């Protein structure tokens, strides 16, 4: 919260857009600002009415360098924008640095994301130190079509203006904590000697030689990838990682996603009855990749580029009682299966589960 707990005395607020950036179409700017206002009005009793009146509560403008508010902008990058806490005059106003590369997508800086953040200040919020929060100080791209206001921000703004008048309150994504014993994963893969644990729009990155676990947005590395990845595996020989969501898959090579992805999973040989893949791992010694779907699994030959005959087979027949597989990866000759907060270590040579542990055992908790 902002010291002094400034807030607007009424819920129906007005806003005015003073000018526009040359970097975007005017309609795209209007749309981005409207969407940003809706981020906050959809979780509080606040309403925002556009006006041309000079004394609008929230005045939004693009400004250049020293723009007479004692906080000059610094040119491209660095400080992108700022806003003032609720109050008369400059209070509530949002200033955007005209020199930034504003956009409606992943290029440069997404106007919607930045305005939504600044409006948090206009309503009385300060910065959050939750790296997944909208009110975190540094810029992080999220596809506007996938954006959901994080729980940290919902809690903050509702503490100032209360909840909406609805039976079911909106909730938002919580930032995964590496040492949360209840942490589960959507997908896991090795990647050039590191481990990548996917969860919602996040990725926990663990390097075997480093003690701490790095938390990043998936979009930081691959802006075009969706959140909620469901399966992933590395083809070490081709230095590729394949990521799966619903009935599509992407190939990533380092930071790049080659042209033509996503592709339908049926290209790999799945029958149309399969709608999504729960987990996958690849055994680089045999060139065989294992795909887990509900209680069955397929085996794919990376060299022949086709599914092997005699599949699908029951998971329980060949891997034991590991239940439905959320995520899997292979390293140091063992396969690690994740089911909820439990992890099974499987020895493909003896075809037995050799140990069981917590899902977060890789994070030095």
């Amino acid at each position: 919260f902002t010291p002094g707990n400034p807030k607007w005395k009424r819920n129906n607020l007005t806003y005015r857009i003073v000018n526009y950036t040359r970097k975007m179409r005017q309609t795209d700017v209007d749309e981005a600002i409207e969407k940003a206002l809706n981020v906050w009005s959809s979780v509080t009793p606040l309403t925002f009415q556009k006006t041309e009146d000079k004394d609008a509560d929230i005045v939004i403008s693009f400004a250049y360098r020293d723009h007479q508010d004692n906080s000059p902008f610094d040119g491209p990058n660095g400080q992108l924008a700022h806003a003032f806490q609720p109050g008369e005059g400059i209070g509530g106003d949002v200033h955007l640095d005209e020199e930034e590369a504003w956009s409606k997508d992943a290029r440069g800086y997404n106007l919607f994301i930045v305005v939504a953040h600044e409006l948090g200040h206009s309503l009385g919020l300060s910065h959050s130190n939750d790296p997944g929060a909208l009110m975190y100080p540094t810029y992080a791209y999220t596809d506007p079509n996938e954006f959901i206001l994080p729980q940290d921000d919902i809690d903050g703004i509702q503490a100032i203006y209360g909840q909406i008048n609805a039976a079911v309150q909106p909730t938002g994504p919580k930032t995964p904590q590496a040492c949360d014993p209840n942490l589960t994963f959507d997908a896991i893969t090795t990647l050039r000697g590191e481990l990548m644990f996917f969860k919602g729009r996040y990725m926990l990155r663990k390097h075997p030689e480093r003690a701490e676990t790095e938390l990043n947005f998936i979009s930081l590395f691959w802006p075009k990838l969706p959140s909620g990845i469901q399966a992933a595996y590395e083809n070490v020989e081709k230095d590729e990682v394949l990521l799966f969501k619903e009935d599509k898959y992407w190939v990533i090579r380092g930071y790049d996603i080659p042209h033509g992805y996503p592709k339908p999973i049926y290209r790999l040989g799945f029958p149309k009855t399969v709608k999504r893949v729960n987990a996958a791992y690849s055994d680089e010694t045999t060139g065989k990749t294992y795909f887990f779907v509900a209680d069955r699994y397929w085996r794919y030959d990376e060299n022949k580029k086709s599914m092997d005959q005699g599949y699908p087979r029951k998971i329980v027949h060949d891997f034991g009682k590991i239940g439905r597989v959320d995520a899997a990866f292979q390293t140091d000759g063992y396969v690690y299966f994740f089911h909820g907060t439990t992890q099974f270590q499987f020895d493909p040579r003896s075809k037995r589960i050799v140990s069981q542990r917590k899902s977060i055992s890789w994070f030095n908790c």
Partner: protein
Amino acid sequence: FPVGPEAEDEGQTLNLVETYLQNFYNLQIDHHPHVRQRSKNHLVEKLKEMQEFFGLQVTGKPDLETLEMMNKPRCGVPDVQQYM
């Protein structure tokens, strides 16, 4: 003598750190020589405050991770101080 590259880097780093902490952590700088040591301590305290906020290792030194964070594009509103 021409400033060596490392000394130049050091000057740039100090400038980046001071500017960042002034902008976002309300660092007050006093360049009078007789209060230099106190200013230096003040800067270290503010640097620790910033590292604490971002969940970095609190070293009081402008290490790589801290400088990386300072170079990230961000909002111009301070992290710790009323913004009027």
